[in-house]
């Protein structure tokens, strides 16, 4: 992006004077495909689909998603529609037979005349004048194949997703392929989605904005794209339909999975009392549990004006549907943090001091665990002036792998008094050092995560669907980026060791 005053001035000039046009195209074969797929989806809502039907649905939904918003020929390799024709009909249960047959017939018809109608429109109306600069907006998943297709046809355009569009230098033509709302966050309702992308028409990326629509797109209403109530909007000449026969519910594209809450066996064999935790439903039939009192805090990806940033949710109330959580493989995460903390201490002190700190922590935790095993453990803590609830919490924390020791010295000394650990200034100094090192390690880990999510933004195409993406961080294992579908209001009892871990409906990672 060019960030200078000249470009700024051009952008504002475009916002003041740019023209916008809307053209809707016809595509009967795709309309037939959409109707057939919809009938299959309805059937799958009534009867649980078998795996082959589920696979077929996934493929057809993918094709629908791409062809609704990107001008690719239906026989493009990226879509893989040929595989549908090779489906073995014996794998399809009879109850789905009619709907599947209709879908396959629709796919055959689509493949007979595969050219996307938008391509003819673009050849004639946009790329007929080769001197014009063009920004073309398509959904993130389709950026690469569309850019390749345009290049093959000798069309010069800067093909971008929504993030790229924000950064793009102003061009003569801004092409919006498909509904503007396709580019909004999947978690928004239609009206909010329209508002979130309204800037495409009121702060455009080209002097002429051309919206091209076709069956499968959402209804188009120019009034949706004003900056705010009362702000001026220019006339948008409309040609063709602004509403199509098959209206697709945005929510129907979400695969919420069919699994209920996972079953989480207690790996300690019941020695440790589980803790109340909030269940968070994630995409792809996954779950994760968090507690404000125990275990790790959720990390999530957010965006400032231009870049992805990794933030920590200090409280669970910050976790909301639509958020993308970053979840690391538990063991790799822990060893990475431990190693970072060790290095931090070694840089300032020595191995002996490090060992003293870790031995102290281990001893403290072991003595607390021993206390927890005693029938009078809670009573002993209560006799030392600790409330029952706090006593229970302290005993559980001894089993929390992320926990070090109480934050306040007086609380630590009280516990030491009960478990028979001597607490000198040196002891407290070691605890403080360990905690500082852990905090620094957490900071380093967050920065490493941030670098990794910025280094390659391919994950964005997956979480946009929404689906799970994975990235690998050197020396720190794999991180899953998982969109949140729902945060359950009711708490569940969960073994402390399972907090912050990805779980599937079967209870496995």
């Amino acid at each position, binding site marked *: 992006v060019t960030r*200078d*005053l000249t470009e700024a*001035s051009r952008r*504002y*000039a*475009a*916002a*003041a*004077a740019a023209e916008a046009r809307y053209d809707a195209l016809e595509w009967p074969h795709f309309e037939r495909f959409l109707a057939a797929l919809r009938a299959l989806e309805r059937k799958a809502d009534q009867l649980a689909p078998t795996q082959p039907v589920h696979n077929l649905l996934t493929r057809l939904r993918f094709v629908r998603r791409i062809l609704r918003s990107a001008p690719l020929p239906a026989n493009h390799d990226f879509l893989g529609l040929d595989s549908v024709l090779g489906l073995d009909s014996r794998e399809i249960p009879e109850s789905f037979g009619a709907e599947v047959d209709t879908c396959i017939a629709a796919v055959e018809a689509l493949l007979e005349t595969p050219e996307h109608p938008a391509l003819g429109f673009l050849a004639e109306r946009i790329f007929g004048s080769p001197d014009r600069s063009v920004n073309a907006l398509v959904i993130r998943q389709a950026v690469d194949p569309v850019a390749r297709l345009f290049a093959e046809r000798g069309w010069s355009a800067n093909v971008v997703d929504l993030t790229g569009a*924000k950064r793009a230098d102003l061009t003569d033509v801004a092409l919006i392929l498909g509904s503007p709302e396709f580019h909004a966050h999947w978690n928004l309702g239609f009206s*909010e989605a329209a*508002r*979130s992308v*309204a*800037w495409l028409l*009121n*702060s455009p990326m080209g002097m002429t904005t051309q919206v091209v629509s076709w069956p499968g797109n959402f209804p188009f209403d120019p009034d949706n794209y004003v*900056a*705010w*109530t*009362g*702000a*001026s909007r220019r006339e948008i000449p409309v040609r063709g339909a602004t509403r199509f026969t098959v209206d697709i519910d945005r929510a129907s594209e979400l695969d919420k999975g069919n699994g209920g809450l996972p079953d989480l066996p207690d790996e300690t064999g019941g020695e440790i009392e589980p803790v109340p935790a909030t269940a968070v439903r994630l995409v792809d039939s996954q779950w994760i549990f968090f507690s404000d009192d125990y275990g790790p805090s959720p990390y999530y990806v957010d*965006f*400032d*004006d231009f870049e992805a940033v990794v933030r920590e949710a200090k409280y669970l109330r910050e976790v909301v549907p639509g958020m993308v959580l970053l979840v690391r493989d538990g063991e790799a995460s822990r060893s990475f943090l431990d190693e970072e903390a060790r290095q931090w201490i070694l840089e300032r002190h020595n191995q002996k001091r490090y060992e003293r700190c870790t031995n102290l922590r281990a001893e403290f935790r072991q003595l607390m665990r021993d206390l927890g095993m005693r029938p009078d453990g809670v009573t002993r803590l209560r006799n030392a002036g600790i409330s029952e609830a706090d006593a229970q919490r302290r005993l559980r924390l001894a089993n929390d792998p992320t926990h070090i020791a109480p934050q306040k010295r007086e609380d630590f000394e009280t516990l030491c008094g009960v478990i028979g650990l001597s607490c000198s200034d040196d002891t407290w100094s070691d605890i403080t050092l360990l905690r500082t090192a852990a905090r620094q390690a957490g900071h380093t880990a967050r920065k490493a995560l941030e670098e990794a999510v910025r280094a390659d933004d391919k994950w964005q195409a997956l979480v946009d669907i929404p689906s799970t993406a994975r990235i690998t961080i050197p020396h720190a294992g794999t991180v899953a980026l998982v969109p949140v579908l729902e945060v359950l209001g009711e708490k569940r009892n969960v073994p402390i060791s399972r907090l912050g871990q990805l779980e599937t409906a079967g209870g496995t990672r």
Partner: protein
Amino acid sequence: MRDTEFTSTTRVNVVAFAGFPGHKLDLTINRIPVREIPDDTPPDRGGASLDSDIEDRLRNLPGYANLWHAQYARQCLSPVVIVGDGREYLQNQREELIEDVPLWLGDEQRALLSEDSHQTSNPERTYFHPFMVFSPQVGNTLPWLRAMKPRLVIVTSWSAHRRMHPSLFAGAPHIILANRRVKSAVAAADFLDQVKARGADAPVPTPPHGIFVRTFEHQVLVDSAELSDDDEWSDEL
């Protein structure tokens, strides 16, 4: 520039410095630019002197000449404050403005904006410089700063405005720059739908170049955690 304590005297137009009995200035008070600082402002904020180059430039400005001290002090006591993320970036933009579009600025503004003391983001130096550049959170732990009154506050994004302490620089006019291309634009639009627009007779600027302007009044809490609802007052933004 320096913080000074004054005491009242019985003589008209005479100002006495506290701590210096008998030390009086026989001056028309309005010739001495002064501004009351809020309670609990740190007692020793030091002082600020001006770079000799800028001093020379100010001396040569029409109307400044021998009064440049006073003119400069008036600007410092009524600063323009920029609030936004990325203070270094904002400081760079200031330099870019001076270098690339000098014609946008008059001689006086150019001289005042040239001051690069590296202290203009230090809240303790407020009222010592003609402009300040702060992060949105600057007032969260500094009640005395919140009570200061700049001439104008320019907030560089809607999200920065939402993160500012609700009473930061209350009473000063604010300009909030909302970028239509970012997520918070929707929140800004919602907010504008909810707040009362200024009276119909108030002129709403209609700038060119695709900039949309909305002026509004906004309830601002007076700065105290113990406030009751009755203590709210309305302030124009």
